[in-house]
């Protein structure tokens, strides 16, 4: 039993992996259906009211997916990541781990990596589902741009996990870790409403797949991508440092 296997077992035995993959896949399949049949769905609720909805384009399915992934998917991801990264929330568990490793880094790194891989892969699976259904129901999507955009979206989620690690190293409970992390992640798009700032923020990346298959170019996400990589690395360093300074 290693700390890497421990994290894998945490995902599998607690069935969190099902929740994580399930939520992204659900919205991956739901998004294109909603986009394709939006007019019919609205008509069924509209009674005699005549609704005029523009014909869907393939990117609409991805737009719907990204919208849900950025909200519900992010919330689930943060909750699951916090449950793994806030290992001092129950001090006795913290004592068990901390007194058996040379550095607290040995505890944090496997948790961060496993969670980051699980969250980003779940997002990518949902994105594949959205791509497949959009192509089938609506029309072709430029695969290359979709892939680059999806990877940038996954990078944003890796950043979100690093943020959770930073907060968990200071917060005393899983719930507080979730609340503070979500607060910071929700504040980011609000700050990003100012265009000059928005394109530098990690939150800009979550919509990259949608933007790239419409009219954006990778250059539009370059600054946010570079900032996100640095913030993620810095966040991981901060998380380790914060956990080292904590007393149990």
């Amino acid at each position, binding site marked *: 039993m290693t700390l890497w296997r421990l994290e894998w077992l945490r995902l599998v035995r607690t069935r969190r992996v099902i929740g994580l993959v399930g939520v992204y896949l659900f919205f991956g399949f739901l998004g294109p259906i909603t986009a394709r049949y939006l007019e019919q769905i609205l008509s069924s609720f509209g009674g005699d009211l005549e609704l005029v909805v523009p014909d869907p384009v393939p990117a609409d399915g991805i737009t719907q997916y990204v919208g849900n992934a950025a909200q519900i998917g992010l919330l689930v991801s943060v909750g699951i990541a916090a449950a793994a990264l806030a290992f001092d929330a129950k001090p006795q568990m913290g004592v068990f781990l901390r007194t058996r490793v040379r550095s607290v880094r040995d505890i944090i790194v496997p948790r961060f990596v496993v969670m980051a891989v699980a969250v980003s892969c779940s997002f990518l699976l949902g994105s594949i589902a959205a791509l497949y259904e959009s192509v089938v129901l609506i029309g072709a999507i430029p695969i290359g741009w979709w892939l680059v955009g999806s990877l940038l979206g996954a990078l944003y989620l890796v950043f979100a996990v690093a943020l959770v690690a930073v907060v968990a190293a200071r917060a005393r409970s899983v719930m507080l870790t979730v609340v503070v992390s979500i607060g910071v992640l929700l504040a980011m798009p609000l700050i990003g409403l100012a265009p000059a700032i928005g394109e530098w923020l990690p939150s800009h990346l979550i919509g990259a797949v949608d933007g790239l298959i419409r009219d954006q170019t990778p250059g539009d996400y370059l600054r946010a991508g570079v900032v996100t990589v640095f913030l993620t690395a810095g966040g991981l360093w901060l998380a380790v440092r914060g956990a080292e300074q904590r*007393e*149990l």
Partner: protein
Amino acid sequence: MITTRSLTKRYGATVALDRVDLAVTRGSVYGLVGPNGAGKTTLLGILSGLRRATDGAVEVGTTRVGVLPDTPLFDDWLTACEVVDLSLRLTTGESNPERVAAMLAETGIADAADRAVGGFSRGMLQRLGVAATLVSRPELVLLDEPCSALDPLGRREVLDLIARLRGDATVVFSSHILADVQEVCDTVGILRRGRLIFEGPLENLLVGKARPQYLVRLRPPIERVVDSLQRVAWIDEVTVVDPERIRVGAADLETLERELTPALATAGARVVSISPDAPSLEDVFLEVIR
């Protein structure tokens, strides 16, 4: 194995440890006792590296330290076997199923080896904690109230386990159960309000406080007997313990041993039993911390 000099820990204005000079010799079993809030857990936390001292110095003569908190907890979806295996792997880098199985057997939870620990009672978790702490054969074992949740059988097994460590490992354990400390420890440290008010061999503590006493059980009524014994010149003290027992003390043990029975006969006492009354650690502890 452990030396602290003027070890001090403050939490804001509260002084949790006040200039503690601790000396734990290699291979000894050291009992740390004291009332709630005396600083036992803080001291163990500093020795295990989980807390930092505000002032003073700590020297621990090994990096192979096993730590058991008072209420051990583990991920409840792990099996007992996996917990002990994880502990061994993290501390030594090796996997040894035979050693894990032996440790589970030694702590009496072999039957539950493949059960998820989420269903374990507090006593079983404590046994598992002991197994996970000792599996890697640490040179220094820090145990915080290791028997607090155990039934008499479990307590007996864990105390035997600790006693067997003597010589092979150095053990420091805190306990509220002074009988446990008296049974397995060779050295005792008494903490009171963050200060180490006594440290030394258990015999020194007990002998220093010992005075010749006998506990006598009588058929009631005992008032006339007590009155008669109080008039005997060589008897220092007659204390009524309860309606059927009295404690008789004297300055000289030999006189007490020779003269007590005749004195009781003279007093017309109907004696049920009579036995020497050595002070327990609890008696001494209560006297010291007052």
